[in-house]
């Protein structure tokens, strides 16, 4: 029966090729626009660490006070060095790491004739690697002992390893960074969570993988500044000049991440935070009541507004566009099907049930949907190249035409046209055979 309906549908397409082509094109464009924007949206709004995200938390402490615009929902989005160190020393989570973005220049060793180049990295604690499930190609992260001893060790990306050491196991080799020698302890295997959750507050949410990681304690010794934001609006008095003055200042620039395995641990940590802020108030450092927050990973991404508003608006508008395409297809299908009311009358008179008429026209709609879906797929592939036009390169790179998206595109097209075909099919099924036959 299905193949018969398909034949009928093809016959009908041949009779009005213009109208059919119009419907296919409209569905194709509508589906492509919404799929392209959806692909970008999905890419930027995903959970970067699905297995662990519920156990990773970011504490926030208000060190600026209400007079500088702090509210419950608007706290400084990084910590002072003082607060970050106090919380690190509390060791209240299963694991914890302070982290800040750094940049430096690497001088390739003499053998390779390369000019020095700049590279981006992070200063972090040993727990960083275990907390965030960082995969290693060679070696491993440094130990807590290295943190304590402020050792000159470094973990590098496989890309940097390729560039400097031609991709061999470089563990134990020496790397020259900013005029200092570091011993490579590990080579990280293509690790680049998107969005880069641990650095969204500095606006480095999307982009290529970081090149290297080195111990926070060592970076502080070497006076390596943050490459991210440094916000001193919380300091009432001028910041004392010099590195130590900056460390002791109310400038916020350090991010802190804590791993808390269960609800009681989270509650305990929250208590610790408010107690800490209350203590600062007692000591006269804060002139306001304790204002602290603890976000989990996805809550933090949401709070920081990681998904660019452009992404959401374009999904919304493209969705509206698909809706118009759908309404349009309903109208055109209606026109197309009702033009054949006489044919329906004859089929009904010859014994076809309403169900048969329904099936016939839904198959016809689905056939248009398949064609529209294929066209939509083609246009989506074109649209993927267009994403670079609309979004920053880091975001645009994320949008890929995966098998899932291919399936979704065709599915959306077919189900949308079948949905569009429901009303015309219902109208066709209501055609009175006797009336149609009489009017012939």
């Amino acid at each position, binding site marked *: 029966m299905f193949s018969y309906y398909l034949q009928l549908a093809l016959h009908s397409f041949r009779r009005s090729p213009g109208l059919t082509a119009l419907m296919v094109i409209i569905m194709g464009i509508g589906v492509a626009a919404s799929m392209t924007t959806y692909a970008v949206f999905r890419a930027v709004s995903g959970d970067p660490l699905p297995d662990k995200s519920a156990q990773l938390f970011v504490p926030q402490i208000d060190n600026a006070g209400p007079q500088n615009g702090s509210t419950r929902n608007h706290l400084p989005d990084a910590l002072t060095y003082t607060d970050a160190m106090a919380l690190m020393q509390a060791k209240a989570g299963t694991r914890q790491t302070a982290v800040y973005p750094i940049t430096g220049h690497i001088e390739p060793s003499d053998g390779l004739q390369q000019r020095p180049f*700049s590279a981006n990295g992070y200063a972090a604690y040993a727990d960083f690697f275990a907390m965030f499930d960082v995969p290693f190609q060679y070696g491993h992260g440094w130990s807590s002992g290295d943190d304590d001893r402020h050792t000159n060790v470094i973990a590098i990306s496989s890309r940097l390893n390729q560039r400097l050491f031609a991709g061999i196991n470089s563990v134990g080799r020496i790397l020259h960074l900013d005029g200092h020698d570091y011993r490579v302890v590990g080579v990280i295997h293509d690790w680049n969570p998107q969005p880069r959750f641990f650095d969204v507050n500095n606006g480095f949410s999307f982009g290529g993988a970081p090149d290297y990681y080195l111990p926070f304690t060592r970076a502080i010794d070497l006076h390596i500044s943050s490459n991210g934001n440094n916000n001193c609006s919380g300091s009432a008095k*001028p910041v004392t*000049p010099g590195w130590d003055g900056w460390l002791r200042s109310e400038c916020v620039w350090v991010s802190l991440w804590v791993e808390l395995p269960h609800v009681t641990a989270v509650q305990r940590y929250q208590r610790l935070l408010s107690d800490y802020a209350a203590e600062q108030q007692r000591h006269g450092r804060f002139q306001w009541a304790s204002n602290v927050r603890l976000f989990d990973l996805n809550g933090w991404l949401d709070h920081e507004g990681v998904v660019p*508003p452009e992404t959401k*608006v374009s999904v*919304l508008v493209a969705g509206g566009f698909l809706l118009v395409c759908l309404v349009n297809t309903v109208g055109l299908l*209606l026109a197309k099907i009702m033009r054949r009311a006489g044919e329906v009358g004859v089929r009904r008179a010859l014994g076809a049930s309403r169900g048969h008429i329904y099936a016939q026209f839904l198959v016809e709609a689905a056939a248009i949907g398949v064609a529209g879906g294929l066209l939509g797929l083609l246009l989506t592939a074109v649209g993927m190249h267009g994403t670079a*036009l609309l979004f920053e390169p880091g975001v645009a790179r994320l949008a890929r035409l995966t098998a899932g998206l291919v399936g979704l595109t065709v599915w959306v097209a077919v189900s949308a046209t079948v949905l569009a075909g429901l009303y015309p099919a219902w109208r066709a099924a209501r055609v009175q055979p006797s009336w149609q036959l009489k009017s012939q």
Partner: protein
Amino acid sequence: MHIRPIASALWHHKGGTALIVLQIALTLAIVCNALCIIHTRVARLSRPSGVDEASVLAIQNQWLGDPAPQPAKALMASDLETLRQVPGVVDAYASNAFPLGDGGWSKGVRYTVDQPSPASFTAIYFADEHTLATLGLKLVAGRNFRADEIGDMGARDTLLPRVIIITKALANRLFPDGHALGKQICIGSAPSSTIIGVVERMQTWIGSYSEAWVEQSTLVPFRLLASGTVYLVRAQPGLLERVVRMGPQALVAANPLRVIGSEDVRTYEQIRATTYRKDRGMAILMGGICAVLLATTAAGIVGLTSFWVSQRRRQIGVRRALGATQGDILGYFCTENLLISVGGVCVGAMLTMALNALLVDRFEMQRLSLAYVVVGMVALLLLGQSAVLVPAWRASRLSPVEATRAT
């Protein structure tokens, strides 16, 4: 033309009529809001930066070995000397940031040191006596920095400028009476600085939170002695491309102990394109969607009206036989379309406002001005009329003989 018979015919086709009404309404809602987005974005990306963009480039430079302030000062001076000797270079200076760049310093501005919260915010640009000439900034009041006023500052020193040059936007913000010159303000936590000059316009660097004070900038007379610096270079007309190639080469040749990456040398054209990429892309996307949407709606109207015409061939024939002119038939379909379209745009106007309210609420979009809605409504009515013309004209050409012919 009698409306009643048309209305009753439409009631007969309520399914199709409702579809066109809905389609017109949705189209209006989306097109109006998309136009509003386009307007906002285009307005944003066409803001003048104040810089003479056609002839300025920026070179991001990083010296190796993290030089101390004194050596850094010497390096900077010799780099600027090198740059000024490159053929085609008019002038150059060193700074921490530049208008339209992707980051920089900002400070709160207070009238007095003990004022609890700042009166405004400002971008901070390190500058010297060459800055105005290099960027092509227009001084509208006061004077430029003198060479002997330029001080040195380490990366972790407190910014303590005695004299500053500010933009007109900042001057107007702080001193609405228009007398900013000679007044004293406090930048960040520094005691007062005297305003010695006002430039017409100099945009801030563009970050997520600089939007609210996008033309409020302050020039401070210091060399920032850090390991990284950015050189702003002005080229002679037509020689920009040459300077883009020669400038960095000359720097590396003079002193190879530095890093200037491939993305560190950018003309203002490139800087502008990168900064406003999203805005331009959004405007193009919205424009594209509007065009396709309007075409889709027009195609839908043509399709459905053609269907109605074909359904009513007999009635049209009868009317023609009874004396209706071609104009009557044409008028009939045009009026019918007008009725539907008016219904559509009325529903659409409400949908437009609802969608706009959602966008304003959720995505910090601007509130739609009523002018957009009115223009959109008129445009859609015209679109409907022009879409219906072809099928209506075909209907009017039907001969009265149709009445006697079986369908």
